[in-house]
Structures are given as structure tokens and as C-alpha cells.
């Protein structure tokens, strides 16, 4: 009878001891460095190598060689020593995001490329992600997760033993919040390293805070609420913006540039696809805010105005027909209006009962896109409207 409780108690002591294991600080990863096979770090690398294999065969990856060379070039410009260690994957996704795997797998979402105004803003984000790699943040974060979930299950169990109601749920809640806070500390650290590299590479220091300003304004305009601050893994944007603005003020007066033209010329041929993906999020107010900003900046105005019209055509609220026609008309006045603008205009005019205008717009669509996939359908509509 007495043997079982003793071994249970011994196990409980062993548990408390293992849950309190400390996390030793880790040094920065050196260029070309690989983790030892026996280490926990090698396990995370292995898991990401498998993920990277899937990524290589994924249709979500944008493979255009020139665009890939350009983004990789920015990475190498920021830290030539780590150039061989980092592999960039451009991911077709409308969110503003980038991420870094422990083994140097960097993912850059096209939603970020669409929103950045210039190379400096892109470079700041890439530098931030490289900061995660250099500081080995996956490793320290996973060790932290392990320690905290170990502790949560041990203390949850201990609480249950002495009768604290819901102690399991409480300890896992505390563990989760504290893991998130750890994530925020890492973000601050990555910002600091990223900023340093970005500054050294000669980019305009004010652009780092600028991209957060743009994002905050877009999020405030959007239809969707942002995640609760306690569980957000990134520091509150305002705090981050202020820190970066402070860093920019401290930065020396060395010559710097944002490289706006170079950046915008590189992404020009991809913007149409990226805008189309953004529209699919159906976050209409956020997109409206974004497209207005892009139109004002003046790059690819015709296609951006076309997509602005598409917001109203799809949302179809009171008065949206007029707004759509207005945007399409402005788009048509630009040199880079896509042929699709006439097709959309035709449908909106038709729905408003303006059949002659609709017919004329369909005809102009076929004039500009004579080999369109939907040519037969459009010819049928023209017939219907005659």
C-alpha cells in the first residue's frame, strides 16, 4: 500500500525539478553554422527542411526569376555574410507578412510586396526577419514553450492535487500569455538588429517607422478587428513605431535612400495579380483605404482604380454602382487601364438599366482584348443588348 504513494511523490518531485529547468542564453548563429545533430536545434531544422521540401513543390510560391533575384539581392545587401544561409520564398498571399524558419527558410508574402512603397520598407522587414535567424529565435522560443508547457502541466497538476478549481486551465492560460510576451520581446530584438543592418546598408532610416504608420492606418480603416493585444505575438504597433522613429532620429546623417523607383519598377508587372488577391479577402474598407493610397502614390494608377471600382461592384451597397462607374471612368483615363475595366463597367451599366452604355463598354472590352477567354459569352451579351 505504501509503495505507490512514495513513487508518486518521487515522480512529483522529479516533475517539479524538470519543469524548473533554466534556459541558457544562446549566442548568435554564425555564417555557415549548422546545429549539432544531437541538439534540440537540429530537430527544429529538420522539421523545417521537410516543410521547405513541400514549399519547393508548392504552387503558392512565386517563381519569377527576376523578382526572386531582386528580393534575394536585398537580403544579401543587408548581410552579405549570411547571404548563402538564407533562402527566400515569395508566397502568393494577400496578407502583410513575412516569416523566418530556424534553418534560413524566409517566406515573404506578396501582400507585403504590394504594400511596401519602396525598397527601404521591404529591406527593413527582411532585416527584421534576418534578426530572428541570427538570434536563433525559433530555438529560444521553442525552449521557452517547452519549459512553460512543462511547468503549466506540472503546476496545473499540483493545483489539482491541493484542490484549486480550474487550475489546469489557469496555468495553461498563464503559460500562453507568457509565451506571447516572450514572442513580443523577440520582435523587439529582431527590430533592433534589422534596423542596424538596414541603416548600415544605406537605406532611409525613416522608412522603418513609415511602414508601421501605413499598416496602422489600414488596419483602423478595415472591416476586421485586430487580435487582442495580450495574445498578439508582436509588440503593439504604436510602441514599435515610436521606437523605430526614435532610432531613425538617432541615426547619423550618412547619405541614404528609399529606392522607390527601382522598387516600383520591379513589382509593376505583378501588381495586377496581387491586387486581385487582395480583393478576394473581401475586407472592402481596408482595401479601399489601401487602393486610395496606391493611387495617390501614382504607380500603376489605371489598374489600381479598376480594382477600386471592383470593390464597389462586388460590395453592391447603396450608392456603390455610382462609385464603381466613377472609379472605372478614372481608370479608363489612365494609360495602364486593364481591358477588364470595360467588361466590369458594362455589367454595372447594364444593372443600372443603361443598355446602350453597357453594350458600348462590352464592345470596347473585345476591342482591347480580342482573344479574351470569355469572348463568346461577351458576344452573346452584346447580342442580348442589341
Amino acid at each position, binding site marked *: 500500500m505504501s509503495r505507490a504513494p512514495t513513487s508518486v511523490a518521487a515522480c512529483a518531485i522529479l516533475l517539479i525539478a524538470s519543469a524548473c529547468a533554466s534556459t541558457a542564453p544562446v549566442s548568435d548563429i554564425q555564417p555557415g553554422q549548422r546545429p549539432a545533430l544531437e541538439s534540440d536545434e537540429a530537430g527544429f531544422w*529538420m522539421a523545417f527542411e521537410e*516543410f521547405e521540401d*513541400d514549399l519547393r*513543390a508548392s504552387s503558392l510560391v512565386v517563381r519569377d526569376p527576376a523578382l526572386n533575384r531582386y528580393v534575394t539581392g536585398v537580403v544579401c545587401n543587408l548581410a552579405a555574410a549570411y547571404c548563402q544561409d538564407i533562402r527566400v520564398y515569395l508566397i502568393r498571399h494577400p496578407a502583410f507578412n513575412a516569416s523566418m524558419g530556424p534553418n534560413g527558410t524566409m517566406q515573404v508574402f506578396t501582400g507585403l510586396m504590394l504594400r511596401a512603397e519602396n525598397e527601404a520598407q521591404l529591406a527593413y522587414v527582411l532585416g527584421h526577419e534576418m534578426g530572428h535567424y541570427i538570434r536563433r529565435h525559433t530555438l529560444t522560443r521553442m525552449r521557452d514553450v*517547452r519549459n512553460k508547457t512543462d511547468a503549466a502541466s506540472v503546476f496545473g497538476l499540483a493545483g489539482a492535487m491541493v484542490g484549486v478549481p480550474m487550475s489546469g486551465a489557469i496555468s495553461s492560460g498563464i503559460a500562453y500569455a507568457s509565451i506571447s510576451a516572450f514572442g513580443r520581446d523577440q520582435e523587439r530584438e529582431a527590430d533592433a538588429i534589422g534596423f542596424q543592418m538596414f541603416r548600415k546598408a544605406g537605406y532611409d532610416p525613416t522608412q522603418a517607422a513609415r511602414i508601421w504608420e501605413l499598416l496602422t492606418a489600414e488596419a483602423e480603416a478595415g472591416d476586421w478587428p485586430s487580435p487582442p493585444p495580450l495574445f498578439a505575438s508582436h509588440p503593439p504597433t504604436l510602441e514599435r513605431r515610436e521606437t523605430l522613429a526614435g532610432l531613425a532620429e538617432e541615426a547619423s546623417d550618412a547619405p541614404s535612400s528609399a529606392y522607390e523607383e527601382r522598387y516600383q519598377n520591379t513589382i509593376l508587372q505583378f501588381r495586377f495579380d496581387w491586387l486581385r488577391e487582395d480583393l478576394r479577402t473581401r475586407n472592402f474598407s481596408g482595401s479601399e483605404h489601401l487602393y486610395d493610397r496606391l493611387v495617390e502614390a501614382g504607380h500603376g494608377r489605371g489598374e489600381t482604380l479598376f480594382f477600386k471600382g471592383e470593390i464597389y461592384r462586388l460590395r453592391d451597397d447603396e450608392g456603390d454602382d455610382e462609385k464603381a462607374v466613377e472609379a472605372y471612368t478614372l481608370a479608363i483615363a489612365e494609360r495602364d487601364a486593364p481591358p477588364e475595366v470595360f467588361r466590369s463597367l458594362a455589367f454595372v451599366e447594364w444593372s443600372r438599366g443603361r443598355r446602350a452604355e453597357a453594350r458600348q463598354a462590352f464592345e470596347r472590352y473585345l476591342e482591347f482584348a480580342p482573344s479574351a477567354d470569355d469572348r463568346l459569352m461577351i458576344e452573346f451579351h452584346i447580342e442580348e443588348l442589341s
Partner: protein
Amino acid sequence: MLGTMRGALRGVVLASLALGMAACTQTKSFVHDQVPARPDGSVEVLLLEPDIELSEISVGGIAFPKADWTERGRSNVNAALVQIMEQKDARLIYYEPPADAPPEHPYNQILKLHEAVGSEILNHKYSNNSFLTLPTKKDKFDWTLGPEVQQLREVYAADYALFVYFRDSFATGGRVAMMVVVGALTGVAIPGGFQVGYASLVDLDSGDILWFNVLFSEVGDLRDAGSAAEATEDLLDQLPL
């Protein structure tokens, strides 16, 4: 997290079906309704790189991948496969993916299709939940990848393709202690480490999945050459070759 997510989902399916099985080592296999006769003499089997990962279960119950164990497990299973196939008078041909093949490359498409079909077999043939039994597949086993697989047959000059998948996990000392304490106090068994695997044999002429097997074990250990050979033998026991 495209791939990892898919992997995780498959892990959940396998784990939930594992819980429905009893302790020790168990396998459950299906054979295609129409298996063509094995050609006489030696046959050529294209082996897709076995998908194997070994991990350690922390006190908090999270599986952390272990690279050194995985490397050992992979080499043990590969050695066992060579032996087993020799006994069956089958020659192994190793699949080497073309460098930087785009996603639309037919090989990539065939591998992805196999992964999707394999997941469906796990979902609909192995679940204890009758809700997941497909009326059209209830009393038959006729999954196929289609004749496009002949592209692999032509390039690799192989009759069959063999897919092998293993996940093996081991509880840390702390986790074992946790299992003891929780078990003693509540009588509830919380999971420690276990081994799951599946294998499938594809006819490279018709594309039919000729045979499919799932293994679950609470005692296996792929880190050990002998135990890995046993697990691989159990997994390929009923292989129709």
C-alpha cells in the same frame, strides 16, 4: 504552414485511430479488389523516400522532433527494407526527385495525389466512426492514382512504387513521471510515446493502390536496428509481392 499543417492533420488522424487500437503492435491492411498476378521472377520496386520522423514527448505533452534519432531511424528502416525486398525477389530502385522541379511537374503531382488519396484511405477506411464510412467505398477497396503513374514506370523502369511512412515518439523521463502521477491520482491514462506507420504499394501500370497497411505500436523503437527491422517486417508483412 502548408506542409506542416497537412502533416499535423495526418498525425491527428493516425493518433486518433491508434487510440482505438489495443496495446502492443497491431496492423490492419486492405488489398485492392483486383490484384494482377505478380510477374514471374524478379520485380522492380520504386521506393519513394520513406517519410520518417522520430520525436520526444515533453512533460507538457508536446512532440519535439529529434534529428539524430530520425537519422538513425531512417537508416534502420532503409536497411530493413533492402533485406525484406531481397527475400521477396524484388529489386529496390530509389526515387531521386528532379532538382528544382516546378509544382506542375508530373512527379510532384503524382506524389501529391498519393498523399491526398492516402489521407482519404486513412480517413474513410480506418476510422472507428461509422459517420466517416463512405457508402461508395464501404465494401470495396479500389482507390487508384490513375494511369499517369506510367510516367514513373517508364523513367525508372519499375513495376511497382512503394511508399513508407513512420512516426515514432518517446516520452522523456519527466513525461513518464507525469503519466505515473496522473494515472495514480485519477486513473486516467495520458499518452506517452507510440509508433505509427503506414505503407502503400502502387501498380505503376494501372495506378491502382494494390495494398495499404497501417501499423500501431506502443513498444516499437526505430532507433534500434533490431526493433526497426521488426516494425518494418510487421508493416510489410502482407505485401502482395
